[in-house]
């Protein structure tokens, strides 16, 4: 193979490789089921606005600034700066007739947090703010 063919092949491979591996991340996730269970809790209440207010207060207690709050979507997004950056999104939706499900997801320095402990700590703080117990969701 001539040097010329070789270089064309290299360029072609680079383009293909770039596309394939970079696109692969667009829809990729870790173990979705396990992660969802870390990130979700159910509460015995149905007042969505009260829950959103409690989430906002808890995030403020944890030194977050609220970036976005949307009652219709049941969404609150916040950022914390403390030598590091954490961005957190919390979504509230009805779960059956008597419960609300709260799902939190967070990024630590722009990398998804996939460990259970930080979420556990967040829900403990939220429980305190609501005077309610958070139930694990299957």
């Amino acid at each position: 193979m001539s040097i010329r063919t070789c270089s064309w092949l290299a360029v072609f491979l680079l383009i293909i490789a770039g596309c394939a591996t970079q696109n692969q991340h667009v829809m990729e996730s870790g173990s979705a089921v396990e992660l969802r269970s870390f990130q979700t809790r159910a509460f015995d209440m149905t007042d969505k606005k009260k829950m959103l207010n409690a989430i906002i207060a808890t995030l403020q207690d944890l030194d977050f600034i609220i970036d976005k709050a949307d009652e219709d979507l049941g969404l609150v997004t916040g950022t914390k700066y403390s030598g590091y950056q954490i961005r957190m999104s919390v979504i509230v939706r009805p779960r059956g007739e008597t419960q609300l499900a709260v799902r939190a997801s967070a990024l630590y320095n722009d990398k998804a947090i996939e460990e259970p402990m930080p979420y556990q700590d967040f829900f403990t703080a939220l429980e305190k703010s609501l005077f309610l117990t958070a139930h694990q969701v299957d």
Partner: protein
Amino acid sequence: MSYRQGVFVCLLLSGLFAGCATIPKDAFKLSPTSLEERQLQSRKFDTLDQKLLLAAGAGVLQDLGYNIDESNTTLGVLTASKKADAKDTGQIVALVALGLLTGTMTPYDDKQKITLCLVIKESLDDPNSSVARITMQRIIWNVQGMISRVESIKAPELYQVFFDKLSKATFLEANQI
């Protein structure tokens, strides 16, 4: 294992651990002072008109040169930010002195982006009042344009200035909670 092997293993392990970004253990834990901080950041106003407080808050923030980034009336949230100077003469003098001693100049702080968040909600203990709470944070860039610090601003005197202005704007007294 010889001493040299021991050192090598230690270095290797510390290298591995340094590679993993670990989340600080207290990142999502309420600090022992969180209740006290909440009190310092909050004031009670004798009104149930949360829209009035929020609109007045937006006016005060505009007066202070902030740009409103997010607002939600039903949830009582207002977030605003501005860019400002972050040069600190004391820091510059200290860093120049250090630079003369060591021969390398450490870049000093240049600019900052300050974000404020105002949350208004009904008071839990008083059915005729609303509570306003303000929290602040900032990102500081050095003269090389690199982020030198990201932090929450916890300064009771700044909360006081804000609530004095909010109080004047609403003709309502801001009470400690």
